[in-house]
């Protein structure tokens, strides 16, 4: 187990390194921060001093090595766009907002998708099943920014139940979380449904019924426990996809999380922050995958003893 963990962490670190190179190269290929951050009529002196100050005149590999050396010590440099802000610190400051949104989105996905998928499986072929399928397909075929804007208009403007955008109260996070979650609901519900169907067909489910176990118990205890393994596999992808979704949705709902930082930083060619935010994204993804792997062991005794 320990060996496994060590190997996982080592390979994650390798992946992070490659990611940092990719991002570094891409963001430096064109468009200098000079042009994003200085005004139209900036003079050559202004430009030169800016370039000197941020080491942009050095060769690319040197800039990268400098970056890497510092990054290994946790120092990603200072933001160009948000003067005086430590790049990683700035990203980490925004991380709770994204995690809060992502967490709520995952919660919503699970709370809606599991019962939906289970109901669809249990009542396969019934109207509930069809409804669940349509609901799921809707989520998978609506661009999330569009869904987000529709949600704003329906629930904030016409019904007046929830605030349109911004942060502050819990109510602020509901709409963006739904907008991110819906796509996941689809995927998760479909997965749950198919794996539930498989499990419900199993002999041990028949045996449970034969034992006189009530249908509720059969589904939620006997079937779900086994069916849950498959949706759990999906959690790694779920995490990635929720993070990706946050990039767009945070813009729509003006939610100041990492997605917002990422877009602003890339547009502003704020290299230190771009590096920091993408590394942060990757770390979250990898951690969540690690957690999923550990959760497996809890859910599925076969792995524990296998």
């Amino acid at each position, binding site marked *: 187990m320990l060996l496994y963990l060590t190997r996982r962490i080592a390979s994650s670190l390798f*992946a992070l390194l490659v990611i940092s190179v990719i991002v570094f190269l891409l963001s430096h290929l064109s468009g200098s921060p000079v042009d994003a951050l200085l005004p139209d009529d900036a003079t050559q002196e202004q430009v030169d001093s800016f370039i000197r100050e941020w080491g942009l005149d050095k060769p690319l590999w040197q800039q990268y090595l400098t970056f890497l050396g510092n990054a290994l010590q946790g120092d990603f440099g200072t933001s160009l766009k948000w003067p005086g802000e430590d790049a990683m610190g700035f990203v980490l400051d925004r991380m709770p907002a994204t995690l809060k949104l992502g967490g709520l989105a995952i919660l919503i996905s699970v709370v809606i998708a599991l019962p939906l998928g289970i109901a669809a499986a249990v009542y396969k072929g019934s109207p509930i099943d069809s409804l669940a399928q349509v609901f799921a397909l809707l989520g998978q*075929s609506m661009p999330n920014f569009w869904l987000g804007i529709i949600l704003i208009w329906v629930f904030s403007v016409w019904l007046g139940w929830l605030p349109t955008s911004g942060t502050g109260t819990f109510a602020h996070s509901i709409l963006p979380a739904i907008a991110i979650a819906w796509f996941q609901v689809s995927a998760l519900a479909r997965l749950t449904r198919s794996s539930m169907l498989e499990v419900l067909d199993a002999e041990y489910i028949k045996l449970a019924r034969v034992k006189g176990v009530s249908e509720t118990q059969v589904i939620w205890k006997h079937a779900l426990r086994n069916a849950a393994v498959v949706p759990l596999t999906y959690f790694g992808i779920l995490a990635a996809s929720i993070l990706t979704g946050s990039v767009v949705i945070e813009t729509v709902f003006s939610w100041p999380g990492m997605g917002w930082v990422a877009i602003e930083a890339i547009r502003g060619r704020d290299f230190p922050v771009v590096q920091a935010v993408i590394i942060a994204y990757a770390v979250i993804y990898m951690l969540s995958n690690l957690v999923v792997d550990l959760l497996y062991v809890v859910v599925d005794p076969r792995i524990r003893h296998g």
Partner: protein
Amino acid sequence: MAETSPNAPIAPTFWSKASDLPLIPIGLLLIVFIIPAFFAQWIAPHDPYVPNLGARLQPPVFFGGTWEYALGTDRLGRDILSRILHGAWYVLAVSMIGIAVGVVVGTTLGLVAGYARGWFDGLVMRLVDISLALPAMLLALALAAAIGASFLSVVVVVGFALWAYFARQVRAEVLLLRNSDFVARSQVAGASHVRILFRHILPNVTNTVVVLATLQVGIAIMLDASLSFLGIGIPRPTPTWGLLVSDGRDFIATDWWISFFPGLAILLTVMSANMLGDWLRERLDPRQRQI
């Protein structure tokens, strides 16, 4: 209704008869997606690019508009229907080429990784990790900033976003297959690795790849839409559906038809592709899980 207990007194022939072609998704795909993609220039009632400033913001036909512009017009007076029809080709091209890139790269790497194992397998799996850990949207932004947004960049991003799924799935299948009897037999018979891979293993993972590809159509179209939203999609004036929805999003509350109908086109296409994928999965590969 396909479910029945294995002991039920039902002859197997009966069931294979009952499962016919999924006509609804195939029909929808044809009507909304395939036919427009290839025949838009003959069936579209108007030019999708030329503004008609005299006919701006016409509502759709049953909402106060006329049959002249059945789905209404946009802010430059262009016919929404014609734009959707013409956009289909680009959507088709992006999703097909993007998926093709994903399939070719992902399947090849997955095949070789699963077959060869060892360091190459490790490398490929790390690459899969990397690609999954890098949000496609951020990569797209960085890429667009670097090489500019173009048809090519969108295809690259879609391909990049998808290949890992194929690689992972194919590898998993190959791991199972390489231990099977027929591979062993071929090895004993002295077949080369390349031959074993492409003649014996590849045909066996084709089903998986086909099913996965159908299901990725939706993801590809969604991605295209998100890229348009961020202003890094296929450049204007190409009326890709993503751009149409994205451009019309400001007017959801007022001139709703501008984004609604392209959105509907996306919805129907993705829905049908998914239904088709589900159907294919049931037919071809019962083991395949939905992702």
